[in-house]
């Protein structure tokens, strides 16, 4: 009989993911000032670095990583997500990060195969 995966391996662990995202954002945005020309590059870099480290965890998951970078202007921002999945194995994590000139909100959704 094939070994079925243990429940620890097959569940989405939010704490590991939290660190991965935070470190990816720090490496890209730590001392940066909002720059309209570079912001596209920054979102791509944050998302790609997070994705590289998530896949290195080698878990049987599909991932969706989104990142929103917004200039600090006094404006308000709301995000919400609604998911139709298997609560036992799938999960998500949102990380809010800011510096003096901008906010960054990164979300990871992990869906078990």
């Amino acid at each position, binding site marked *: 009989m094939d070994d079925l995966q243990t429940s620890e391996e097959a569940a989405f662990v939010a704490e590991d993911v939290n660190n991965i995202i935070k470190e990816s954002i720090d490496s890209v945005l730590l001392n940066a000032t909002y720059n309209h020309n570079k912001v*596209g590059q920054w979102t791509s870099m944050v998302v790609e670095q997070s994705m590289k480290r998530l896949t290195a965890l080698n878990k049987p998951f599909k991932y969706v990583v989104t990142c929103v970078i917004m200039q600090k202007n006094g404006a308000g921002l709301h995000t919400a997500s609604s998911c*139709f999945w*298997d609560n036992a194995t799938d999960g998500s994590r949102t990380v809010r990060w800011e510096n003096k000139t901008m906010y960054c909100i990164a979300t990871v959704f992990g869906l078990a195969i």
Partner: protein
Amino acid sequence: MAAKEPAPQKDYLIEPSFNAKFRSGRAQEIITEVLKTKLTGVTYHADNTSTWTREIADDIKLKLKELDVERYKFVVQVVIGEQRGEGVRMGCRCFWDPNTDSYATAEFSNGSIFCVAAAFGVYLY
């Protein structure tokens, strides 16, 4: 006499048939319609915008479930912000099977708010 075959209980399907795939175009129509219905003519208020965001996300998810594609998991993300001339950028990357999984996005804006909604459909093998 040929016996009637019992209905298959477990299908070890690697991918959905073409008709049963998550259609990005159809999903985008659904999202655009929900945004238009819910957000035309509204102005930004800090107290009720968070309720709208959640309602829109749930609404889109319910409409995607009505599409009745089998074995798909959905993730819907909605971002609503106030228009004050600030710069915003949203990006995403997905680690999945492009054969079976897809996504759709739509934006809406008026004088006082902007809204971006993204729906991702992921196949469960």
